[in-house]
C-alpha cells in the first residue's frame, strides 16, 4: 500500500496564496485521486511559504484492470463488417463473442501501476489551484515560481517533468540555517523538514507562534495579522522589542497602526489595558539580538514619522486644514474638495428632512460635513492611510468639537469594504450616505462611471455603502433625486449582492426591482417578502399575474366602465381591485378571483367595447400585482 508524497517547492508564496492553497488542495487531491481511480487511506495537506506538501497514504499498488464490453453488429452481419469491428478493437474476428444475436468485443483490460498515474495527479494539483493572483515565469504560471519538485511513492522517486523541472527527492529547508536534504518518504516528511529547520505544517507554526506570544505577555492583534504571519515564516521565533515610553503619548490607535500596518507587530497591553512600551514580532531565524535591534529601529522610525506628523497637524489645526481643501481637486475637473464639502451640508439637510430624523443631531451632522475631509491634507493620513477619518476625528476633538461630531467624521468612510463595519452613529450614517451620494452624482454626471472591471474611483463600493447603510438604518432614500437617474439604477443594482447574502434569490431581487419601486428599503422589503412567501401561494399569484400579462398584451391599465361588467366573475374581480393588494397575502387572495374570472368570462368578447373593458380590467390586475413585484421574473 504505497504512500504518495508531493512537495511543490516555491519561491516565497504570499500569505494569501498559502491560504488559497490550504483551502483548495484537499478537494483537488480528492478529485485527482478519484479521477485516477485510486482509493486512499488518508490525505494530508501542508502549506508553508516555500512549499506545498501533499500526502495520500495507503494507495493501491495499481489500479485494477477494468473489464470493458463493446457491442458490435448483429452476428449475422457480413464478414467484412465483423472483421472491421474486430480490427477497431484490436482483435481477431475469432476473438469476438456472440451473445443475444450480436457480436461483442470484450477486453479484460490491464492493471495500471500507481506510478504511472501519479504524473497526472501532480499536474492536476498544480494546474488546479486557483490563486487570486498568479504570475508567469519561464516555467509556467503559478503564484510564484516553482523551483523544485519532490514526488515519491514510499522510498522511490516517481519520475516526471513539470514546470521545466524533473521530480526528485531533494528539498530545501530554512534558507540560511537549513540547506538541502533528502526526503525519505511521506512518513518522514515533517521530520525530515524539521531537521533542516522548516515547519511544513501551518498548525504547528501557529501553535508555536501563539505559545511564544502568550509567554511574552497579554498581546493583542486588532488588525488580525496572526493568520498572515503564520505564512510569513517557516521556522517561527517570537521576539520582543522595546521602544521609548514617550511614544505612548501618541493616541493608542496611532501607535498600534504604526506597529500593525505593514510591519505586523503585536502590541502588548498591561493589566489595566494601557499599552506597554514594547512589541512582539515573529522572526524567521537570525541572531535574536541583531534581529531585535533592527526591528526596534524600524518601529522607532515609524513612530517618529507618526509623532512628527501628529505634532505638525495639531499645530496647524483642523480649521487650517479645511481652508486648504480649496487647493485639492475632486475627481478630474469637478472642482475642489472644498466644493464637495460645500455640497455635503445641503445633502445632509435633505436626508434629515426626508427621514424626519431628530433635529438635535442634525446640526452636529452638518458641522461634521464641514470638517470631515480636512484630514485629507493631514500629515498623519499621508503617513498612514488607514487612519483617514480617525485622524480627522482626533483633530476635531483637539479643536473642542462635540463627541457626536467627532464620531461622525470618523465613521463617514464606512463601510470600507463589502460587509465592513457600518457607521455606529446617526450623524455618521447620514454623512456617510451624503458623501458617497455626492461622489456618485458627480462621477456619473461627468461620465466617469465604471466600465467592465475598471472602477478607478471606487464607485461600486460607494454605491454598495449607500445601500448597506440605508438598509441598516431603514432610511428612505430617493435615489434619482439624490444621485441622478443613471446613478440611481447603479445604486439599486448594489442591492443584489446584499440580499443574496441573506439567502434571497436573484429572481426575487429582480422581481422586486421590476415592481418599479426606486426606494432601496422598499425594494429590499419586497424582495425579502417574495422570498419569505415562496411556495404554492406565491406560485398561484405568479401564474395569475403571468396570465394577466399575456392576455392584456399591449393594453394599458385604465378606467373600467362598470356598466359593461355583465358577468358575476368580472364584477367580483373589479370589486376586488377596488382595494388593490398591499401584501402578498392579499395578492394570494386575489389569485383565485382571477382564476374564476378567466374560467367564467370570455375576455375576447365579440363586442369591441366589452372586449376592451375586459382587457383593461386584466391589465389593471397585472399592474396592481406588479407593485408587489414583477412575478414574471420568478421561476415557474
Amino acid at each position, binding site marked *: 500500500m504505497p504512500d504518495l508524497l508531493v512537495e511543490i517547492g516555491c*519561491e*516565497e508564496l*504570499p*500569505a*494569501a*496564496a498559502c491560504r488559497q492553497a490550504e483551502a483548495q488542495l484537499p478537494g483537488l487531491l480528492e478529485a485527482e485521486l478519484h479521477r485516477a481511480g485510486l482509493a486512499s487511506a488518508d490525505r494530508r495537506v501542508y502549506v508553508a511559504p516555500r512549499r506545498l506538501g501533499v500526502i495520500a497514504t495507503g494507495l493501491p499498488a495499481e489500479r485494477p484492470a477494468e473489464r470493458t464490453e463493446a457491442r458490435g453488429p448483429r452476428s449475422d452481419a457480413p464478414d467484412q463488417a465483423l472483421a472491421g469491428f474486430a480490427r477497431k478493437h484490436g482483435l481477431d474476428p475469432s476473438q469476438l463473442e456472440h451473445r443475444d444475436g450480436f457480436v461483442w468485443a470484450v477486453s479484460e483490460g490491464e492493471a495500471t501501476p500507481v506510478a504511472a498515474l501519479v504524473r497526472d495527479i501532480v499536474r492536476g494539483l498544480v494546474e488546479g489551484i486557483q490563486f487570486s*493572483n*498568479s*504570475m*508567469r*515565469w*519561464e*516555467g509556467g504560471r503559478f503564484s*510564484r*515560481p516553482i*523551483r523544485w519538485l519532490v514526488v515519491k511513492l514510499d522510498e522511490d522517486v516517481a519520475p516526471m517533468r513539470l514546470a521545466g523541472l524533473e521530480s526528485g527527492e531533494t528539498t530545501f529547508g530554512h*534558507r*540560511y*540555517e537549513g540547506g538541502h536534504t533528502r526526503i525519505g518518504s511521506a512518513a518522514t516528511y515533517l521530520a525530515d523538514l524539521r531537521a533542516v529547520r522548516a515547519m511544513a505544517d501551518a498548525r504547528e507554526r501557529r501553535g508555536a507562534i501563539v505559545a511564544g506570544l502568550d509567554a511574552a505577555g497579554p498581546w493583542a492583534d486588532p488588525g488580525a495579522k496572526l493568520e498572515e504571519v503564520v505564512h*510569513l*515564516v517557516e521556522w517561527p521565533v517570537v521576539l520582543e522589542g522595546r521602544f521609548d515610553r514617550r511614544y505612548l503619548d501618541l493616541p493608542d490607535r496611532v501607535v498600534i497602526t504604526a506597529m500593525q500596518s505593514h*510591519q505586523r507587530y503585536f502590541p502588548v497591553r498591561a493589566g489595566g489595558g494601557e499599552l506597554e512600551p514594547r512589541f512582539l*514580532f515573529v*522572526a*524567521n*531565524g*537570525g*541572531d535574536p539580538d*541583531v*534581529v531585535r*535591534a*533592527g*526591528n526596534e*529601529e*524600524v*518601529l522607532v*522610525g515609524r513612530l*517618529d*514619522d507618526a509623532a*512628527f506628523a501628529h505634532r505638525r497637524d495639531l499645530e496647524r489645526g483642523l480649521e487650517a486644514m479645511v481652508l*486648504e481643501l480649496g*487647493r*485639492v*481637486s*475632486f*475627481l*478630474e*475637473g*469637478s472642482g*475642489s*474638495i472644498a466644493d464637495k464639502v460645500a455640497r455635503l451640508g445641503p445633502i445632509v439637510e435633505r436626508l434629515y428632512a426626508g427621514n424626519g430624523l431628530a433635529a438635535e443631531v442634525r446640526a452636529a451632522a452638518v458641522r461634521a460635513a464641514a470638517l470631515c475631509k480636512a484630514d*485629507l*491634507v493631514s500629515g498623519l493620513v*499621508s503617513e498612514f492611510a488607514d487612519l483617514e477619518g480617525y485622524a480627522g476625528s482626533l483633530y476635531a476633538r483637539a479643536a473642542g468639537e462635540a463627541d457626536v461630531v467627532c464620531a461622525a467624521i470618523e465613521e463617514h468612510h464606512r463601510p470600507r469594504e463589502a460587509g465592513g463595519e457600518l457607521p455606529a452613529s446617526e450623524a455618521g450614517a447620514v454623512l456617510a450616505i451624503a458623501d458617497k451620494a455626492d*461622489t456618485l452624482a458627480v462621477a456619473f454626471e461627468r461620465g466617469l462611471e465604471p466600465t467592465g472591471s475598471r472602477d*478607478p*474611483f471606487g464607485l461600486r463600493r460607494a454605491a454598495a455603502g449607500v445601500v448597506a447603510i440605508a438598509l441598516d438604518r431603514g432610511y428612505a432614500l430617493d435615489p434619482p433625486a439624490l444621485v441622478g437617474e443613471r446613478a440611481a439604477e447603479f445604486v439599486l443594482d448594489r442591492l443584489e449582492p446584499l440580499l443574496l447574502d441573506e439567502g434571497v434569490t436573484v429572481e426575487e431581487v429582480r422581481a422586486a426591482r421590476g415592481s418599479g419601486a426606486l426606494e432601496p428599503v422598499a425594494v429590499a422589503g419586497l424582495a425579502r417578502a417574495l422570498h419569505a412567501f415562496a411556495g404554492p401561494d406565491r406560485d398561484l399569484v405568479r401564474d395569475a399575474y403571468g396570465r394577466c400579462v399575456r392576455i392584456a398584451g399591449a393594453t394599458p391599465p385604465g378606467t373600467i366602465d362598470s356598466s359593461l361588467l355583465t358577468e358575476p366573475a368580472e364584477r367580483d374581480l373589479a370589486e376586488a381591485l377596488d382595494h388593490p393588494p398591499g401584501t402578498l397575502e392579499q395578492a394570494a387572495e386575489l389569485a383565485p378571483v382571477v382564476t374564476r374570472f378567466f374560467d367564467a368570462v370570455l375576455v375576447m368578447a365579440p363586442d369591441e367595447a366589452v372586449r376592451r373593458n375586459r382587457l383593461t380590467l386584466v391589465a389593471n390586475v397585472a399592474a396592481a400585482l406588479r407593485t408587489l413585484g414583477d412575478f414574471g421574473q420568478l421561476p415557474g
Partner: protein
Amino acid sequence: MQTTFQGMISALQAYWEERGCTILQPYHTEVGAGTSNPATFLRVLGTRPWRTGYVEPSIRPDDGRYGENPFRFQQFYQYQVILKPAPADVQDLYLASLQAIGIDVPRHDVRFVEDNWENPSLGASGLGWEVWMDGMEITQFTYFQQAGGFDLDPISVELAYGLERLGMYLQGVRRAHDMRWSADVSWADVYLQNGRQMSIYNYELADVAVHARHFDDFEAEARRCIDARLPLPAYDHVLKCSHAFNLLDARRAIAVTDRAGYILRMRRLSQAVARLHLEVEEAGA
C-alpha cells in the same frame, strides 16, 4: 563595518558587472524610481536579452521631510538591476549580492514578503516581494509581467536596492545624515541642504498653476513626438509629466479621487510609447 556609501555602491557595481550586467549611469530626467529609466521600462519590452545595473536618484517630492527625518528624503538612491530573462537562481544571486556588500545574511532575518508592484501611469505591473532585513524593507524584488500595457515575454526580474537604508545599516548609523559618503564627507555634507531646500520648494513654493500647465504641455509634446514616431523623446516627456504630477501631488493639489484621471493620461502615453518602441525596434532588427 567600515564601508563608505560610495564603497558600497562600487561593491554592488562590481558584483553585477561580474555577472554580465552592462553598467549604466543615472538618467538625466527626474524619475520616481529606476523602473522609469528607459533602460528598464523600454528594455524589458520585446524579446532581446538584457542585463543591466545602474544607480538611479529617485525623486519623490512627497517623501521629503525638510532634512529632519533620518529615513525619508525627497531624493534617495536606488541601485537597479534588470535581468532579462530572469534566471532560475535569481534569489540566490540577490542574497549573494548582500554578502558582497558586507551583510552577513544568516545573522539576519531576511525575508521575501509579498509585494505586488504596479505603476499605473506606466501600465506596468509585476509580482514579487519587498525584501525585509530585520523588518526593514531593503529591496524591491519584482518579476515584471506587463509594461506599457504589453504582456512581457520573456519575463524580466527587477532588483531595486534602497541604498540609503543599506548604507545606514552597514555603517551602523541611525540617521542617513551621519553616513559617510566617502572617507571624509558625510551624507549630510552632500544632501542636507537638498533635503531642506527641496522640501520647502516641493511643499510650499512650487507654483501649482505652473506645474499643472507643464503637465498639459508635456503631454501635448509627448503626443507630437509619438505622431512623429520618435518613442525616445516622447518617453522623456512622459517622464516630465510624471514629475509635474508628483510635484502637484506634494502640493496636495490632487485629491485621492482625482489621481485616476491624471494617471490615465500618463498611462495612455506610456502605452503609445511602448507600442511605438516595439514597432521601431522590430523595423530596425
